């Protein structure tokens, strides 16, 4: 009985699926395979970006992170928040305590006055997080703290996006998808998910910042540095993770080998081959 019910149930699902399959095939023969602008024109082959933090032994290049932070402060921070990062953690970039205090003090933080209980503006302190940037223009600049973890491709995506703006849309694109035409106040960027991005090219020219370490601030250099910096803001634990992991995995390998040897030893007589 149960087998008869089972076979009937199986045939019911099969019939329902065949019905869907038939109607969908008819539809497909009319429409053809979907041809979307995302598939045809969004560039998923990101530019190659090599960072010192890559790989099992990867460590941050502190000089690069500092430069990246200078780019963030000088360029990105006018529109983008970085709300998960606190000033005190900048010490990891090699800033001294006094330097961190000085950086924090440049920011204005709105906080409760401990004496009066009023919400007041005061200079930032190392314990504060980066304050929220209120952006008044068109578009919705995302918080950058986690951006390299929140996009496919991570740092390479950030780097590609920043350096990937193109002045002209391909003629074929406009012919095929007239809707994809870059609108007013929008900018064409083949690395962006729908090709047209509200953000104007942020690194449009060289020397937008003056690096304290004297490195020449080319567009490409700034893009690389800020991408490296954003890896740090997203994964400040990266170095500790890599180092701990190395010892931990080596220890586990050693324990596994010992475990395997004792297993062989215990079973030596039992297998009976």
């Amino acid at each position, binding site marked *: 009985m149960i087998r008869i019910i089972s076979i009937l149930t199986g045939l019911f699902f099969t019939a329902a699926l065949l*019905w869907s399959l038939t109607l969908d095939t008819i539809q497909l023969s009319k429409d053809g395979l979907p041809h979307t602008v995302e598939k045809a024109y969004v560039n998923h082959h990101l530019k190659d970006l090599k960072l010192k933090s890559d790989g099992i032994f990867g460590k941050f290049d502190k000089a690069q992170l500092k430069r990246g932070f200078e780019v963030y402060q000088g360029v990105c921070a006018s529109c983008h928040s970085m709300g998960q990062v606190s000033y005190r953690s900048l010490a990891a970039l090699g800033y001294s305590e006094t330097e961190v205090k000085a950086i924090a003090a440049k920011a204005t933080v709105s906080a409760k006055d401990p004496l009066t209980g009023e919400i007041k503006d005061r200079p930032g302190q190392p314990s504060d997080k980066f304050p929220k940037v209120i952006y008044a223009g068109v578009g919705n600049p995302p918080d950058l703290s986690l951006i390299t973890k929140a996009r496919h491709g991570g740092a390479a995506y950030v780097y590609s996006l920043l350096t990937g703006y193109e002045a002209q849309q391909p003629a074929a694109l406009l012919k095929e998808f007239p809707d994809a035409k870059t609108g007013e106040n929008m900018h064409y960027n083949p690395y962006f998910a729908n090709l047209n991005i509200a953000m104007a090219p942020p690194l449009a020219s060289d020397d937008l910042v003056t690096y304290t370490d004297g490195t020449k601030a080319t567009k490409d250099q700034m893009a690389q540095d800020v991408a490296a910096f954003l890896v740090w803001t*997203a994964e400040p634990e990266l170095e500790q993770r890599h180092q701990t992991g190395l010892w931990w995995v080596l220890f586990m390998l050693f324990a596994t080998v010992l475990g395997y040897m004792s297993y062989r030893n215990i079973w030596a007589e039992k297998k009976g081959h």
Partner: protein
Amino acid sequence: MSFPWSKQYTPSHPVMTWLDEKLPLPRLVYNAVGGGYEVPRNLNYFWNFGFLAGFCLVIQIVTGVILAMHYGGDTSVAFNSTEHIMRDVNWGWMLRYGHANGAAAFFAVIYLHIFRGFYYGSYKAPREMIWLLGVVIFLLMMATAFMGYVLPWGQMSYWAAQVITGLFSSIPLVGDPLREWLLGGFAPGNATLNRFFSLHFLLPFVILGVVILHIWSLHIPGSSNPTGVEVKSESDTVPFHPYYTAKDGWTVGLFMVIYSLFVFYMPNALGHPDNYIPANPMQTPAHIVPEWYFWPFYAILRSFTQNFLIFDAKLLGVLAMFAAILVWFFLPWLDKSPVRSATYRPLYRKFFWLLVVDVLILGYLGKAPAEQPYVLISQLATMYYFLHFLVIVPIVSSIERPDPLPFSITESVLGSDGAAKLTTTKS
């Protein structure tokens, strides 16, 4: 199972004698995972995944309880408290990455454990209860994993809650009120997050309880084995300790190496980037995709695209998705072949491997966007999935001619069994 030759617990210290009289806990452990539990000697490495699954459950409970000490189950703080764990809590990143990848590892291990059961007929009499409890555990795991995924309150968390609770609204008449009751509102919100947190904390302990029942019912008939031939004599078994503690022990090490490589070196490889974007009810992600361990079921859900007879397409998808797992409950009665192991079932074995390929294809399609040609392929793959369990398995089990079985476990290991020779000479 206690065989006549099973060893008995003998306390070696007066304190243990005292304890054994009052509360025979050491005896219980001895009989469950110690020298008192006799196990077939021929288990292959596919039998290690039960122990590993238990180990994963422990990892999840330990990391999860500590994470809960630092997490805030409120929509205004959930995302930031997760980042607080990642940045400010000592070793918080290790706990969270360990927990998220631990869930993936748990599912990987469980899938191998389940497919071991399909191949070796572990669900067959007298082990039906073990199987039924196992399916219950799997269902609880799915619920727990889903609710855990909602907790960080990222974009994928929010939209997963939206999609999965939305499934219930396809139920006729009661659907919409049921969905609102589950969510505690008209859309996922604070009430939803709070109850998911509560249940996500509760369910692992329910799983632990069912795991104990699962092991208890296992110890009635004893473990199955790759030949599917029942234990006949003392030479067929070895005590669990030290033989299987040693074998399970070293694979725990191997498991830890692979798991740790994920936790320390590719902690986000299995996750979706969108979940690092805070939940935003006003912005639907381009592709809503569950974690990899739900992909095959997601593909089944989406393969029903057209209304059929009186059934709404969405309802059919939901029914099929749940049926895809519920059908496992009936497996012990659908497969009536008296031979357990597929090693001796040439026809069933072919269909088993077809099922493996089919589920892998469904997994790939569950990740793919809901567009052609993926939908057509998933319709065919879903069709095979149901035909396999509901039609092919019952029919194959009645028409198949199995290969000859070995006389005993001992014979299958050593090539000959003294007990077998004795019987043949006598007759």
